[in-house]
């Protein structure tokens, strides 16, 4: 089965855009909802959990792997230039994941075309729509059975280890979304975003984040926040951090928030007037900063389309 034919239900809903479509001078915003139940109020640009970061950093330091044995048939080579954890690890574990905003973040168990399994993160933008990275819904592995749309994704909102406060929903392949810039013409990290449309409106209970297309002038001075499910921490635990924006590209946002495998698809969000707005979708670990796909006007429009 080809992903490129018009009959394929997975045909991307948005063609690749060109530079003139980005409209970075036009700012548009979709509003958030806190859903039902407990909610953590916020003042300022970071989550209140940051107030205990020093204590948390002591209690939850990065695992010390320096004493572990080198293993396998590895060959030791040239200097490594890319690190996902940049300097001291100051990520904070979230324990009240059943409360808003933490329940908006979803642990993802992804089953690829070849049956292999992967972990990632997603976040609600509406009652039935969870955004994630493009490489969580469509894996590029040309010439192998893995290549293409994944089989299914199990979505676990607000997961905390073995506890699933809102249960889980398995999203079939037909309910996945991305764009041609990632699927047909990719991989291209500037178009690395996608979504899942859930069969039930679980987002009405969990709430969701707004999302925004901000100009460079608006976005550059803001603090960005990220919470997700990193694979280097105990299984299914949620971890949060914030940082300044390191750099902006036309379709990318760079930051120094520490991330690890499993956090692809996390919301990179700002807090403005007490509400949370996604401004990028986390996707890559880099040498001096990590990065996400920026919510430009075309991305914003696709999110609106996938919400409807």
């Amino acid at each position: 089965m080809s992903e490129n034919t018009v009959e394929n239900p997975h045909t991307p809903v948005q063609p690749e855009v060109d530079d003139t479509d980005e409209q970075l001078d036009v700012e548009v915003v979709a509003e958030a909802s806190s859903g039902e139940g407990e909610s953590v109020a916020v003042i300022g640009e970071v989550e209140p959990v940051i107030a205990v970061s020093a204590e948390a950093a002591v209690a939850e330091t990065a695992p010390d792997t320096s004493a572990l044995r080198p293993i396998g048939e590895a060959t030791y080579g040239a200097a490594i230039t890319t690190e996902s954890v940049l300097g001291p690890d100051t990520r904070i574990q979230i324990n009240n994941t059943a409360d808003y905003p933490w329940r908006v973040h979803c642990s993802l168990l992804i089953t690829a075309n070849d049956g292999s399994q992967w972990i990632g993160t997603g976040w609600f933008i509406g009652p039935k729509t969870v955004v994630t990275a493009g490489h969580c819904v469509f894996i590029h592995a040309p010439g192998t059975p893995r290549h293409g749309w994944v089989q299914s994704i199990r979505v676990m909102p607000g997961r905390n280890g073995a506890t699933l406060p809102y249960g889980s929903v398995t999203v079939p392949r037909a309910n996945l979304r991305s764009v041609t810039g990632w699927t047909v013409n990719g991989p291209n990290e500037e178009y690395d975003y996608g979504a899942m449309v859930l069969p039930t409106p679980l987002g009405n209970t969990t709430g969701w984040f707004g999302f925004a297309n901000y100009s460079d002038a608006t976005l550059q001075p803001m603090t960005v926040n990220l919470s997700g499910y990193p694979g280097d921490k105990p299984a299914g635990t949620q971890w949060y951090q914030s940082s300044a924006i390191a750099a902006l590209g036309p379709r990318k946002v760079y930051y120094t928030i520490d991330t690890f495998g499993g956090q692809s698809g996390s919301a990179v969000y700002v807090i403005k007037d007490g509400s949370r707005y996604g401004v990028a979708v986390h996707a890559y670990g880099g040498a001096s900063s990590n990065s996400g796909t920026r919510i430009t006007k075309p991305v914003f429009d696709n999110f609106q389309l996938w919400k409807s």
Partner: protein
Amino acid sequence: MIIQGVVADPSGQPVPGAVVMVAAAPVPVPDIAALTDATGRFSIMVSAPGTYRLLIRGANAMTETTVSVHTEAVEVRAELPG
């Protein structure tokens, strides 16, 4: 290019469900992590040659290994400490 291999415990038994992720690489890498299958195997596609550091996490243990990738496929055997 593919980094593939098996994760085993100290007795040599395969470890299913271990998390395998790239901790360092010569180029930016997707922040997705693989889970080992029922036979402890995994495979990860990488886009550029160079040196990669893999971090492997089991239920109660973690280890890492460094891999030099200069051919289409590199085989790794990782042992999680007991």
